[in-house]
């Protein structure tokens, strides 16, 4: 496996002609092949990150760039006192409160169901649950918007048929978060597949041993499946959490970017979009982007710190 060019003696060139040593040649080829990514990293990631950090210390405005002034930490001070920012943080938090448990639960539930040893046609059924991931977000949001419509939507018709009151899903400050979480259910396909792979990696001997000891299905699930799947669940949780803070398209489509009702769907990304591209406050928008980055990074680190104690890695300490 580790045999490489330099172990082939004939690859050694005669000493007189000028040739690079094979190991140098190999690393040059390596750098050459990864060069597209390195250039992209500099042009579209690392460079812009530095520029955006610099921007956040100015009052840059794309319409009149020559009037740019250095304002120090003023943008960051403004973040702390801007009620819109606080409101968007609270909105994100409320949304996360519904969306994260629902997404985690539904993707695990579907994984357990569609990995059941007795279930026939697993492949096609998994494909059906995965399918909505392929639907353009705008289109799926429009479909759900109709489905959740207060007067003509089917969900309210079903609720009415079983004697429950109609719910004003989209236009009520309280119900818009559960509504957006329901819309988010169509994005669980990836998490479900990852959970299925996690379920399949649990050794069956453990279940057999537990059954011998008289453990029921629920106990087996709680004591064997969940602990052994915790690395996979953590991975999903991190990705979902990042997604929650990046949330944009669905919230933008349901109110055409207005953030209705009463700014309840004005999530951080919408505030950033508005400040940066509608009001042209690019310096302030850059500060919002960095706040977002710090929050996401912080939450990810907290999760990993928590995971160090609670997540079980079958291969021992990592």
């Amino acid at each position, binding site marked *: *496996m580790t*045999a490489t060019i330099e172990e*082939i003696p004939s690859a050694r060139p005669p000493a007189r002609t000028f040739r690079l040593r094979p190991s140098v040649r*190999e*690393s040059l080829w*390596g750098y*050459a*092949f*990864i060069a*597209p*990514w390195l250039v*992209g990293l500099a042009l*579209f990631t690392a460079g*812009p*990150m530095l520029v*955006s950090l610099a*921007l956040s210390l100015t009052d840059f405005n794309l319409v009149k760039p020559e009037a740019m002034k250095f304002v120090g930490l003023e943008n960051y001070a403004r973040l702390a006192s801007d009620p819109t920012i606080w409101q968007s943080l609270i909105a994100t938090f409320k949304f996360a409160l519904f969306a994260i448990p629902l997404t985690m639960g539904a993707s695990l539930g*579907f994984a357990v*169901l*569609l990995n059941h040893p007795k*279930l*026939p*046609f697993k*492949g096609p*059924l998994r*494909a059906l*649950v*995965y*399918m*909505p991931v*392929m*639907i*353009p*977000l*705008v*289109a*799926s949001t429009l*479909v*759900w918007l*109709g*489905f959740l419509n207060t007067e*003509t939507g*089917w969900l309210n018709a079903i609720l009415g048929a079983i004697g429950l009151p109609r719910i004003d899903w989209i236009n009520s400050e309280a119900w818009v978060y559960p509504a957006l979480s329901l819309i988010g259910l169509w994005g669980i396909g*990836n998490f479900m*597949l*990852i959970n299925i*792979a996690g379920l399949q*990696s649990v050794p069956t001997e453990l279940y057999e041993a537990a059954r011998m000891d008289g453990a029921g299905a629920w106990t087996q699930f709680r004591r064997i499946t969940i602990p052994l799947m915790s690395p996979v669940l953590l*991975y999903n949780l*991190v990705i979902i959490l*990042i997604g929650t803070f*990046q949330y944009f398209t669905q919230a*933008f*489509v349901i109110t*055409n970017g207005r953030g209705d009702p009463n700014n309840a769907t004005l999530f951080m990304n919408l505030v950033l979009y508005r400040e*940066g*591209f509608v009001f042209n406050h690019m310096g302030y928008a850059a500060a919002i*982007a960095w706040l*977002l*980055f710090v929050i996401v990074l912080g939450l990810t680190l907290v999760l990993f710190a928590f995971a160090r104690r609670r997540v079980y890695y079958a291969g021992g300490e990592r």
Partner: protein
Amino acid sequence: MTAVAKAEGRAFSDRSPVARSYRRFLGRASLLMFALVIISAYLLPLLYMVTTAFQQPGQSTTPGAPVYPATAQTATYQGKDYPLYSVPMPDGSTRQLILVEPGRESSGFIDPKDPSSTKIEWVGRWRTLQQTWTFAPLVENFSTAWTQLNFPRLLRNTFLIALLSTFGAVLSSTLVAYGFARFRFRGKNALFIILIATIILPFQVTLLPQYILFTWLGWNGTWLPLIIPHCFANAYNVFLLRQYFLSIPRELDEAAMIDGAGPFRVLRSVIIPQAIPAIVAVSLFHFFFAWNDFFVPYLYLASKPELQPLSIAIQQYNALYASQPTLIQASALMTMAVPIVVFLLAQRAFMRGVVVTGVEK
């Protein structure tokens, strides 16, 4: 147990192979039924979309209208069209009658089978009556949305943007993955970790400078900001391809090198032919990522209708015609048709790719 079986009148013993396989079949069938019910509920909004896309405009707001696409039936009486109602008669039967003289407390009806007969006076409020509906899918919703949206242009734009950006992304990612999979160089591990770390970097952090850069280059309002950044490889694609390249035996490369093949030749003649499934998966992923993307196209093309892809156009269409759900759902159906069909045809390639990128980290 046997007593129960006998009580149910079964001729065979409960422990017989027939009974066991019957029970197993029953278990599987009920589990399948359960799964189908859950999945149907999960996909119910799709049925809503299809149904609404074929409905008459305004059908969903008409009281008493059925769920399926239908028109209220009318009948001609003395040269004019009148609605048809199901009228409960005093003798307990229900008749299909034409409402010709709606009144507050009593109304005049005509029997459509016998229009020349005298008017039937019916006592009661006609608004409480059920209109007669017939199944009538309206295909014009699609043609209306198709022309209003200029759908052929949208399809062409979406397809070209997705194709060009997929080409750039897959080509660059293949080169980079090959570099990471087959060459030893200083800092390789650190660079690979940086590559993976870019996955959790929120795109907002680089968004504004990129926007300023592209605006200064004069690329705002063109497809270039949607295509060029993807031509420099991305973490997901490189990761998936690298994993696959690592599984290709190195002996194949070495055999080719002994025959005098250089690194490009090895990539072209050994690695790529072996890695077709992974390359197909990455291409499909990227193609539909680009097909479905909303934010970046919106940022650069919101004011350029002639260059817009589907998702921008239908969002703006919804902003204009939100009051006409039939047209909106028809446009949504047309937008998702291509991704869904391709996915159902190539679902294995898609679903394998997810697990590789997700779990093997």
